């Protein structure tokens, strides 16, 4: 299976904005002059940072947080094309994807009555038809190119090796967040271009899966433990009832018993028995 990917070479980008125009045209998004950030109608644009042009878009993580956190699977990593896609018919609008995305990419239609999550979907339907995304197809300088991720990684390494004096020796997206479908090489250190460099190299979904995967064990053990406690304590109460001539064990016990956390309860039970005895 080909892992669809985009390689953007910041040293080659002239900031013409052809990619952003093509994205708008292809996805039928309203035009916008001089976008300053991604928005619900701007899924990619070229940000001017210092002397560099930095194209911004969804990173299409190999293990996307947004797809992991989506309770209904509206966001999903397409197994065939590798695009992170969005199915608005499933979405219930919890916006956990926006909270969970380490790159802060998803945008929301805040003023709509039927709001949708909006972001680059790697021109998913074009990929299915065998074409490349509209943005890379439009790039006049080859600064952003489409291809198989492994091939693009080789190409990125080749460029860095061929011109070590030009490029920063790092491929952004190779390891970030467990690897992303969108890769960058640059002639300027990434931290100076506003890239999130504190990003973890482990896939983010692992963090929550570490917790969630333990749930079945914890819940079944806790369930058995609770029923066991109930059974033991009920038995103890029955014994106490037998010993107490007054036939009102609860009244006798209640007068002395201190509340205890469940863990200390069994010890307490013996003390309670002593009181009654």
């Amino acid at each position, binding site marked *: 299976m080909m892992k669809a990917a985009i390689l953007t070479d910041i040293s080659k980008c002239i900031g013409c904005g052809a990619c952003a125009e093509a994205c708008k045209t292809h996805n039928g998004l309203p035009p916008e002059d001089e976008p300053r950030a991604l928005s619900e109608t701007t899924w990619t644009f070229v940000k001017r940072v210092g002397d560099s042009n930095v194209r911004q878009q969804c990173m299409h993580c190999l293990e996307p947080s947004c797809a992991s956190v989506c309770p209904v699977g509206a966001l999903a990593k397409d197994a065939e094309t590798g695009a992170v896609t969005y199915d608005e018919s499933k979405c219930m609008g919890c916006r956990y994807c926006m909270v969970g995305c380490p790159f802060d990419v998803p945008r929301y239609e805040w003023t709509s009555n039927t709001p949708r999550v909006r972001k680059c979907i790697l021109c998913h339907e074009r990929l299915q038809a065998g074409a490349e995304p509209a943005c890379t197809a439009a790039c*006049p300088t080859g600064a952003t190119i489409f291809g198989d991720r492994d091939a693009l990684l080789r190409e990125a390494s080749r460029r860095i090796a061929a011109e070590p004096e030009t490029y920063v020796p790092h491929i952004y997206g190779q390891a970030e967040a467990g690897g992303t479908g969108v890769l960058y090489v640059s002639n300027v250190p990434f931290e100076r271009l506003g890239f999130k460099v504190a990003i973890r190299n482990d896939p983010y979904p692992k963090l929550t899966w570490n917790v969630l995967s333990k749930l079945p064990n914890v819940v079944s053990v806790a369930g058995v433990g609770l029923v066991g406690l109930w059974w033991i304590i009920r038995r103890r109460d029955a014994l106490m009832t037998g010993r107490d001539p007054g036939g009102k064990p609860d009244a006798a016990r209640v007068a002395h018993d201190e509340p205890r956390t469940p863990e200390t309860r069994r010890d307490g039970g013996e003390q309670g028995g002593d009181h009654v005895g």
Partner: protein
Amino acid sequence: MLAKLLKVMTWWRLVVLASGGLLLAAAWLRFTGGLGAVTNLNDRVPWGLWIGFDVLVGVGLAAGGFCIAAAVHLFHMERYEHVAKPAVLTAFLGYLLVCVGLLFDLGLPWNIWHPIIMWNPHSVMFEVGWCVICYTTVLGLEFSPIVFERFGWTLPLKIVRAGYTGLVVLGVLFSMMHQSSLGTLFVIVPDKLYGLWYTPWLPVFFFLTAVAGGLAMTILESNLSFRAFGHKLDDDLLDGMGRVIVVVLAVFFVWKVEDLANQGTLALVFERTPESVLFWGEMGLGVLLPMALFGSEKIRRDRSGRFFAALLVVIGFVVGRLNVAITGMQRASGVDYFPAFWEIAISVSLCVLGFAAFGFAVKNLDVFPKGELAHARPPAEISAWSLRALPTTSPWGIASLWALLAAGVWLVLGTGAPSATAQPPATTPAAVAAPAPAPVPVAAPPAGAPAAATSGAATPAPVPALPTQQALAGGKKLPADYIFPMAAGSPGPCTFSHARHMAAKDAPKCPTCHGKDGFRTDRPGALKEGLLNMETMGEGKTCGACHDGKRVFGVEDDATCEKCHPAR
């Protein structure tokens, strides 16, 4: 008629009516104008007060329900029976209100049922959704015997009672999962949640603080019920709950400090940041101080002391949850969020309606044991809940406690919140990004117009003292002027200037000329391929696409030759 109306219209009922009206108005605005119309939420702050307070706090403070139910029905602490029904009722109402709050907060609330059939077990939100559904159902069933008794439905009563222990076990399990999963929600944002709160142990901390907060809420509720309904307070029982709170808070505190040390974030506690102030507020006022207070038997057995200590726990709990959901995320978001009027209005209205529903249930159902309501006053007098009415054993002691609380609140609100806005976020892209590009001197084409239609070079005549090329194109770095080789019979050399084109009125955009079918900078060769000459331009290709004599002066117009080919 009016007089009659005024007679039944107490202050409290007025508040309830107003809250209901406010809620309806908010619903109208919310569902006609979208979330943006009633909230200050935005792409940087997708979760606000409704998630932070209505959901996280609402669910947490309902934890008293499962704690007391477990104590009574699983651990056979029958004396807690007195508070079991009100605690379960509170939890049930709390969960219903959380559901209503969610209907406001979800972008597409009519899809709220989707997690039932559309599964993603990897999502914490999926677990949260199921827990809400399941535990609300269990709470409804746990509360149902009271309703069945009221209407004398014996068969359903028998069925529910037969399975009551199972229900309670389920309730405890769902609660454990739900309380902890709300913390797990934030385990996936290590870069966004401030180091004082982010930890993989968030689920455990959420569970522990929910138990303390839920029990404290039960104590508060007992005091308030006493005020409102004359419901008898069992000192032994509330004393016991106070001790449990001390133990739970102590476990939480020790674990939290150890976790901060393990993560290497303990130093953040002693830095002077808005976050550390809030952290101290949460830990000092909400954990350490109430632990000290509840640790004293005298205070535990004093109704006012107990009330105050429990209130501190609840306030600490609320601050703690909001710290995770809102203030702890603020620095990374790079923007300041403060809830809009309608966000606050809906949250407050839901609380008021919750109290009203509680009062209604107490009045009409057998929530409190018989006999304890002998001195009950009508719920209309709930408005008499006021601090001065609290009986005190030592007025000075209580006064100093309240002063302490006020000072703490002032410290947290006065010092913490505003300075949170003053502190520039250190880790946002904005901080590392270059200053915004210089203002674009060229007029932008009207929105919606195709780029090609707006292109054109107005006057290639000598341009007087151009600013630097950088500034010309809104910060775009432009190539140097390009002099085309002269073809045979050319009247003079032609110079193409990016700068002049970009400086022109109605300047073309880069993609007007550069693009798939235009001048590709990765393959400069248009000249060699014979594409750029007077013939092709005349056919409307290359320069001729714009220089057609209509949009801008035409290439075939003899009168304007010199514009491109200045005679030597």
